[in-house]
């Protein structure tokens, strides 16, 4: 019988780098959007919507969400790997996490592209 490891921390450096790269993207976006909101000070619905309807902000916001979901996938996967040992349960949790995050990506796109 071949004892193939189907889950584990063998994805290595690529994910480690991706988690850091997405972290930097989110950190930069957070400071940027805070600055924009501080300058614009949207007080009404129209003003608030106007901020995110702006093409550049819309693009950056979507980039933030995509980064967030990829970042969260790596982070949450690491957490499952640390605490959940039975392979079946762990794989199920991994799949559910991916499903949720893929769904959230579509949700975020739907919110932003309605604007």
């Amino acid at each position, binding site marked *: 019988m071949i004892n193939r490891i189907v889950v584990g921390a063998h994805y290595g450096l690529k994910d480690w780098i991706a988690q850091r790269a997405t*972290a930097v993207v989110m*950190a930069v976006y957070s400071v940027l959007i805070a600055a924009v909101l501080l300058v614009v000070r949207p007080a009404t619905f129209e003003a*608030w*919507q106007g901020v995110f309807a702006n093409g550049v902000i819309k693009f950056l916001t979507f980039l933030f969400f995509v980064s967030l979901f990829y970042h969260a996938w790596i*982070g949450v996967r690491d*957490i499952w790997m640390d605490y959940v040992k039975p392979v079946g349960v762990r794989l199920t949790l991994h799949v559910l996490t991916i499903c*949720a995050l893929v769904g*959230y990506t579509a*949700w975020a796109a739907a*919110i932003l592209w309605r604007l």
Partner: protein
Amino acid sequence: MAEMTIKKRPKNLDLTTIRLPLPGKVSILHRVSGAGLFLCLPVILWLFGASLGSPESFATFKSVAGMLPVKVILAGLLWAFVHHFCAGIRFLLLDIHVGIEKEAARQSAAVVFAVSIPLTLILWGVLL
């Protein structure tokens, strides 16, 4: 092979008696905040979507966000994001070997709390 390397050393894995140093507290709270943010993503996305959808959904957003239980959750999420952000920046600096000496690392852990707690309160005052 594995048995050869395992030494019988005394260990204490009792979470209630381990005295976690400050950098350890930053670290575990970074994990807790990341997990909490992840679990609340549907709430965050729903609120974000409602706030941008239409004048009607914006009004719904405002009334929902004004309810006390929601406010408590949002306060928690705000803290989680700010702590995760500050601790995350510290980890990124440690990753590129900035401040990895013991004393410096302890100080930067204290800075994380010194920044994240007041910043959470300020943002709370501004936003909610």
